[in-house]
């Protein structure tokens, strides 16, 4: 599904990605973890084509990304901070994204129902609360039936009920055989959903595997301590 080969990127003097090699197979939930500044957002942005790597290649379904934008039809993306043009209404924003993707078959109504957004459809985005905006953000990300879904901090600002609904939604998408890439700081959430984790440290893949594998490698019994031990080891 995704193949990253020897990816390098620096911003000014700051080397963020130092030779990432990663292969993600089709199907399943993959969680990208790492401390702040480790390069996980940069990696995701490289996959999305928002950041252009200095060297290295990325293939999606064996097609290179370079000078290609149509592949993004195959990706649904949930950005970390959702900020939309304030003068648009919710319904107009949804229609606009649909229009941009030329997609006809969408699940927007179903998702609006799920997150109870009907009362907000005719409100301007500038007047929505952070949590409601995040729900709109989720609708936009999930309403297309793309084989790859990338979620950057999907839980931020959500109330517990919506949180639960989101989890169910992610699982149901996985059932359909989709590949889902998630970043999150909430380890309990990651532990619950992730089939595999990808741990990035200082611009390199430090670990890739299932949670049990991680636990055994770090000789820790629970996930949080496993992560903590990686971090303390690397900073020691």
């Amino acid at each position, binding site marked *: 599904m995704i193949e990253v080969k020897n990816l390098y990127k620096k911003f000014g003097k700051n080397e963020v990605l130092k030779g990432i090699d990663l292969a993600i197979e089709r199907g399943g939930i993959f969680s990208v973890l790492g401390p702040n500044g480790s390069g996980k957002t940069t990696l995701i942005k490289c996959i*999305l084509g928002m950041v252009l790597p200095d060297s290295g290649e990325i293939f999606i379904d064996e097609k290179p990304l370079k000078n290609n934008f149509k592949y993004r*039809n195959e990706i649904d993306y949930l950005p970390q901070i959702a900020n939309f043009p304030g003068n648009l209404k919710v319904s107009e924003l949804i229609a606009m994204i649909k229009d941009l*993707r030329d997609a006809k078959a969408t699940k927007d109504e179903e998702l609006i129902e799920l997150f109870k957004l009907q009362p907000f459809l005719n409100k301007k985005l500038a007047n929505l609360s952070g949590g409601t905006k995040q729900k709109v953000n989720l609708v936009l990300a999930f309403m297309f039936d793309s084989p790859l879904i990338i979620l950057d901090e999907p839980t931020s600002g959500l109330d517990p009920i919506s949180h639960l609904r989101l989890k169910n939604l992610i699982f149901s998408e996985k059932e359909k055989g989709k590949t889902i890439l998630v970043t999150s700081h909430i380890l309990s959430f990651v532990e619950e959903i992730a089939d595999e984790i990808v741990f990035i440290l200082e611009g390199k893949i430090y670990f890739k595997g299932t949670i049990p594998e991680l636990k055994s490698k770090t000789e820790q019994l629970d996930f949080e301590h496993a992560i903590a031990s990686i971090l303390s080891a690397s900073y020691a």
Partner: protein
Amino acid sequence: MLKILKYSFYDLVRSRWSYVYFLFYLLLGVVLLFLNNDLSKAVITLMNVIIILVPLIGTIFGVMYYYDSREFTELLLAQPVKRSSIFLGQYFGVATSLAMSLVIGLGLPFVFYGIFNSSAIWDFSLLLVTGAFLTFIFTALAFVIALSNENKIKGFGYAILLWLFMAVIYDGIFLMSLLYFEDYPLDKFSLAATMLNPVDLSRVLILLKLDISALLGYTGAVFQKFFGTNFGLILSSAMLAVWVIVPTFFIWRIAKRKDF
């Protein structure tokens, strides 16, 4: 690109600032025409507004729009849309909505005043055309600056500096060099210096149309001879167009290489 343009345009057309801008021009037009009752006077005041205010508004609006819609831009970047389309679409959206506020805001009072029966129609349409050109030029320059500066404060600073340079400092340097080299023939130099700054070029084009050309004496005659011909008119239109195209090209190029 057209889709992005459409949405940026709709977004702006509905924003408060577009209305303020539009109403400002509407009010200006009404006050000048119906309280002053002197058409050519009104056109001169309008010229001052267009040469100073339009570039300033274009610059500020362009920079502001870019920084304000950064997150939304990121959302768009993840969509299957070409990068250059996103930025060019946004640019044309902003510039078109500003230009329309200007043209309609000023145009309406003049239509009611009965400009179509007046001989001033050509002067007036020249005024609107140069105003629209200046909007496109300065919005494009603002986008280039904003795209090259992640820091919002810096971006704003550079944009204001650019406006200040084009509207004021350039003329200061121009004047100094004219005084310094006064012993040399200066026709070609002043012609070139005027052509190179879109603000000056617009000002001179309007001045010459306003029949102030006679006031300009010998220098004016040289300019009139140049701009009065089809060649001069085509060249100055081309120059204004170049001032739109070059920054637009830079928007395209920077957008293609930029990381978000």
